[in-house]
């Protein structure tokens, strides 16, 4: 297993806090970082033909937005920290995709934030972080 840390960013503050924690760890262990942004998407949904036609354009736009507004600024901020950083944007179910990316990039640990969803909400919709912790095959650090 390589010495890499995967950080789940979603443009929110909790994602940022996860990154901060990961940076501290990376500096200590000379690990490199994989910054990820997973766009919530499912292949099993229903659309009008018009939406299908525009899907490719929208996907490109979504990826661009994730790169430009979330990942690129973080990479720029880390430029002087002397860390090796790579980025990836992918569509999919969030927890599931993070687990897949962890395998694909052969990381040693996942850093994720937590939204602090209310109990009712988590009960109905399930918590992404909880799903991640339960299914990940590497240690997961959840940053509050």
């Amino acid at each position, binding site marked *: 297993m390589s010495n890499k840390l995967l950080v789940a960013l979603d443009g929110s503050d909790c994602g940022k806090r996860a990154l901060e924690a990961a940076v501290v760890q990376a500096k200590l262990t000379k690990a490199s970082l994989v910054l990820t942004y997973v766009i919530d998407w499912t292949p099993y949904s229903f659309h*009008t*033909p018009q939406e*299908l036609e525009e899907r490719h*354009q929208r996907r490109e736009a979504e990826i661009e937005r994730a790169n430009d507004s979330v990942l690129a600024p973080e990479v720029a901020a880390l430029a002087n920290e002397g860390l090796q950083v790579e980025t990836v944007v992918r569509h999919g179910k969030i927890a599931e995709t993070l687990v897949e990316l962890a395998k694909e990039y052969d990381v040693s640990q996942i850093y994720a934030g937590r939204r602090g969803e209310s109990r009712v909400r988590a009960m109905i919709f399930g918590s992404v972080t909880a799903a991640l912790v339960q299914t990940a095959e590497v240690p997961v650090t959840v940053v509050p």
Partner: protein
Amino acid sequence: MKRFLTMLALLAGSISSAQAAGIDETINAATAPIASFIGDIVFFKIPVFGAQLPVVVLWLVVGAVFFTFYMGFINLRGFKHAIELVRGDYADPNSHGEVSHFQALATAVSGTVGIGNIGGVAVAVTVGGPGATFWLILAGFLGMSTKFVECTLGVKYRNEFEDGHVSGGPMYYLRQGFKDRGMEGFGKFMGTFYAIGIFIGALGIGNMFQSNQAYVQLNHVSGGALDGLGWLVGLILAAVVFSVIIGGIKSIARVTEKIVPFMAIFYCLFAIIVILMNAGSIPQAIANIFSGAFTGEGVAGGALGAMIIGFQRAVFSNEAGIGSASIAHSAVRTDEPITEGIVSLLEPFIDTIVICTITALVIGTAQVAAPDFAGDKIGVAMTSAAFEREFSWFPIPLAIAALLFAFSTMISWSYYGLKGWTYMFGEGERGQTIYKLLFCAFVALGCVVQLGPILDISDALVFLICVPNILGLYFLAPIVKREMNSYFARIESGEIKKFK
């Protein structure tokens, strides 16, 4: 285009000036001769052993049989793989976020699962006897192969515009496919022929027939309270369609797209319950289907008559050979157009072999238990009466389902017709708006005329487009076959891997 605007103005004028009660009759009287004229041309019938065989039905069935054999029973061979593809077993995670096979299939299915599945089957059984069901299922099975060929070609030859949006369908594969075979002029002619056909056909099968049957069912449920008010229902329906396709109120379309699949499941579930409640009649109903298929008792033209009706309704329902689904499927981005063809096999299967058969059994078992249950009702009303025997409240959800099926089919077909239009007149905004206005006008018109002429017009117009389409499929089938063999060879050798 000016002519269309004039037509619209005339239509609007006639509606506002005539007396409310007289409108329906006036429009009926005006459309009936047109309908029978178009019907006579397209459904030119060959008398065979006492039955009347419309040339166009023969054309479609011969095509479906040919593609089934030529592709080596892809409808059987590809079935398991189709399910694997829809499940996403072969989906590359790096292409997640694009249109998935499931999404393309779901969109195409909600365009085909319409009132035909509820009302069309009843028409088949009324005219062709229970035996028509057998031929309907067989036609669905054969149609899977036609669908496979046309959807593969739709993806292979689609047109990608610079901004990344795609337009595909028979008009594009006819043009490009023939060009590749050195027949550029002919390809252009065929592409345009198809584009005109789908544009006009969209106003029939995907429009007037749908709004008409939705109105019939609403009227039935309300106990005839809407008699003579077809124009009002039509205007309301037209207004809703208008708000979606012109007003861009996507939320309505989105909600419909999400409800329709559940409605379809709900419909099938209750249909199965009704069939099981008549369990005693099932063996007789099935026996009737088989004996009727080969003896054609009491059907004009005997077994052949039953067969013709069954085939005709099947094509009308699953649209194999019409090429419409290939327009919806062509939005999928894939390096292997064959995969989309394989997925589309499931469409006639779901539409005809599953849903139509279930409807046929509901009617069939009711007929065994109470031969005269429907009285003189036909179409959706007959199916509704069969359900009503077990659940007196069922006509109401059925009316809602019918309305939603009709609506989603209209939305899909407005898109198919639009693609025909933009193929001819370009992607200009103004032209598109004119087309959409015309489409809405026909939604309203559909509610005002009788079922007979509506069926004639929409059958005729839709079948007209299968002429260039299937002709093109014959010419392009070798290309599909080559790709299919190469694809399966690479699956076999492990070159194409599962991701799951």
